C-alpha cells in the first residue's frame, strides 16, 4: 500500500505573521514550520503503516508544494517516520490559491502513480494553520475523482476498507469508502509523535525528490498569483484592543464589579 501525506510549510502562528506588498502571505521573512494540523495527518499515515499486516510493504511519502524552505516540512515528516519526500518547488507557484495548489498536488500524486507506485491513500490535515480554508482535501478528491472521506476524528481500516468518525455540527457520522481515497483527519485523531533522535538521524538518509511544475505536467501559466481565481484587494492589521479594566476579587467584590460591568454595557 502506498500512502501520500500532503504537508504544508506555514509561517509560525506564534510569530508576527504578515503580508507582502502584493498581499500574499509572507512565507520568507517569518519563520516557518510544518503546519501543526498536518502533523496529525503524518501521525495517522504512520499508524496505518504500523497497524498493517505487513508494515514493510507500506510506503509513506510526504508531499509538499512550496518554496525552497518548505523542504523543512518534509524533513519533519521524515523525522517522524515517513519513508520518502517529494517537494514540488517552482518560482511560478508563489501566490497560488487553493484551486491551483490542489491542481499541483493532484498532478504530483498522479505522477507518482504513473511511476509505477499506485497511490492508495492520500491523507491531509483538516486545514492549514495559515490560510485555514479547509478546502484542499475536498478539491483533491474532486480533481483525482476519488472518494472523499474527510475530517475524521477516528480512522479505522481493514484491508482497503476505510472508516472514519466525522463529528459534524448536527450529527456524528461514520463515513466509509474503499481505497484509493482521500482522507483528512482532525486534531482529535490522536497526538502526533515527536521525532526521536534515531528518527532524526535516519531522516537524513531518506530519499527526497524535487520536482518542478513541468516534471508534474502543470503549465506555469495555470498557477501562481496571476492565475489565481481570487484577488486580495487590501489587507489591514486589526487595531490592538485597548486595555480594559482589571479588578482583583476580594470577598465577592469581583462578582459585583462584573455584574456592574454587564449592566453598564446593557447585557442585563
Amino acid at each position, binding site marked *: 500500500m502506498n500512502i501520500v501525506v500532503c504537508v504544508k510549510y506555514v509561517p509560525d*502562528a506564534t510569530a508576527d*505573521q504578515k*503580508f507582502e506588498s502584493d*498581499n500574499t502571505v509572507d512565507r520568507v521573512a517569518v519563520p516557518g514550520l510544518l503546519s501543526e494540523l498536518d502533523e496529525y495527518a503524518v501521525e495517522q499515515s504512520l499508524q496505518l503503516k504500523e497497524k498493517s499486516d505487513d508494515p514493510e510493504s507500506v510506503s509513506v511519502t510526504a508531499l509538499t508544494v512550496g518554496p525552497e524552505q518548505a523542504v523543512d516540512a518534509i524533513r519533519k515528516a521524515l523525522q517522524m517516520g515517513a519513508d520518502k519526500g517529494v517537494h514540488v518547488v517552482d518560482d511560478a507557484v508563489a501566490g497560488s490559491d*487553493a*484551486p491551483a495548489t*490542489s491542481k499541483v498536488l493532484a498532478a504530483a500524486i498522479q505522477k507518482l502513480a504513473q511511476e509505477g507506485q499506485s497511490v492508495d491513500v492520500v491523507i491531509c490535515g483538516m*486545514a492549514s494553520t495559515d490560510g*485555514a480554508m*479547509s*478546502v484542499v*482535501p*475536498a*478539491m483533491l478528491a*474532486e480533481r483525482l*475523482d476519488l*472518494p*472523499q472521506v474527510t475530517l475524521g*476524528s477516528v480512522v479505522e481500516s481493514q484491508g482497503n476498507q476505510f*472508516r472514519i468518525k*466525522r*463529528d*459534524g*455540527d*448536527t*450529527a456524528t*457520522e*461514520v*463515513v466509509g469508502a474503499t481505497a484509493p*481515497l482521500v482522507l483528512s483527519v*482532525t*486534531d*482529535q485523531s490522536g497526538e502526533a509523535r515527536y521525532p526521536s533522535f534515531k528518527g532524526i538521524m535516519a531522516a537524513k538518509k531518506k530519499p527526497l525528490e524535487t520536482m518542478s511544475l513541468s516534471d508534474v505536467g502543470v503549465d506555469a501559466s495555470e498557477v501562481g498569483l496571476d492565475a*489565481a*481565481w*481570487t*484577488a*486580495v*484587494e*487590501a*489587507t*489591514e492589521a*486589526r487595531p490592538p*484592543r485597548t*486595555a*480594559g*479594566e*482589571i*479588578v*482583583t*476579587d476580594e470577598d465577592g467584590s*469581583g*462578582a459585583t464589579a*462584573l*455584574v456592574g*460591568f*454587564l*449592566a453598564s454595557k446593557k*447585557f*442585563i
Partner: protein
Amino acid sequence: MSEILVLVDHADGAVKKPTYELLTIAKRLGEPSAVFIGGADKADAAVEAVKKYGAEKVYVVDDSEIKGYLVAPKAEALQQIAGQASPAAILISSSAEGKEIAGRLAIKLESGLITDAVDVQEGPVTTQSVFAGNFTVQAKVTKGTPIITVKPNAATPEESAGAGTVENVSVTVSDSAKKAQIVASQPRESSGRPELTEAAIVVSGGRGTGGNFEPIENFADSLGAAVGASRAAVDSGWKPHAFQIGQTGKTVSPQLYVAAGISGAIQHRAGMQTSKTIIAVNKDEEAPIFELVDFGVVGDLHTVLPAATEQVIQRKG
C-alpha cells in the same frame, strides 16, 4: 437582475439562522434564489421559511437518492442548478460541510472561492478575518461565478417577502459521487441553549474549571448564552469537540464573550478575538487573556461566577 444562489442550511428541514443571513446578503447582490436539498416532505415548510427572507425562487432537490453519501452529490446538484440559472454568485454557510461543497463546486465550475467571509458587499467584495483575527482582508473573485462561504452573524437577517416560486429539480448524480458512504449517523442532542456560532453571548470554560462546568453553564443560562470550551477542556474530555472554540474548533464573534479559567493561548484567541466585548475571569493575573479583555476579574471562577449568576438573576427579577 441576476440570481444569487443560496444553499439552504437546515437540520432535517428546519432552516438555520445563517440561511436567513445569506438571503439578506443575496438581496444586496441580486435576486435571491434558495436551493433546498432535503427530504421532499420537508420542502414546503422550508420554502415558507425562506420566502419570508426574500427568496424569489426556491430550487428543491429531493435528497432521497443522495443523502447517504458525503458532500460530493450536493456539489453535483449545485453545479447542475448553476448551469441552469447562471447565477451572479453562490453563497454557502461556512460550516465544515459547506466549505467542502464549495471547494468541490469551485473546481467543477472553474470558479474562484472565498471562504469564511464575515461581510459581503456589492461587487461582490468580501471581508475576511485572518491570522487569528489579527488582520482583515478585502477580496474578490476574479474568475467564473463567485462562490463565497459566509460565517454566521455576517449580516442581520432582514425579513422581506419573496415570491418563493418552487422549481423542482431532478439532478443526476454520478456513480463516483456515491463512493463515500455515510454508514451511520447519530444526531447531536440539543442542549436547549443557543447554537455556539450564532449566539449573541458565549460563556466558555477552560483548564481552570478543573472539569466542573456547572458554574459556566449556570452563568451562561442566566445570560441566555451558549456554552463553549477551550482546547484544554476538550482534550481533557470535559466537553465534546463540538464545544471547542479556537483554531481547530469554532470561531465565534458574539456581542459578549466570557472566558473563565482560560489562559488565552493563540489557539484559543484565533476563535474569539473578534468578539465585540470580552470578559475574563482567571486566577492567574499574568494570563495572556487579560491582554484582550474589556473587563477582567482576577479571581477563582468557582466563587466569582456563582455569585455573579445570583446577582444577574436578581437583577433580571
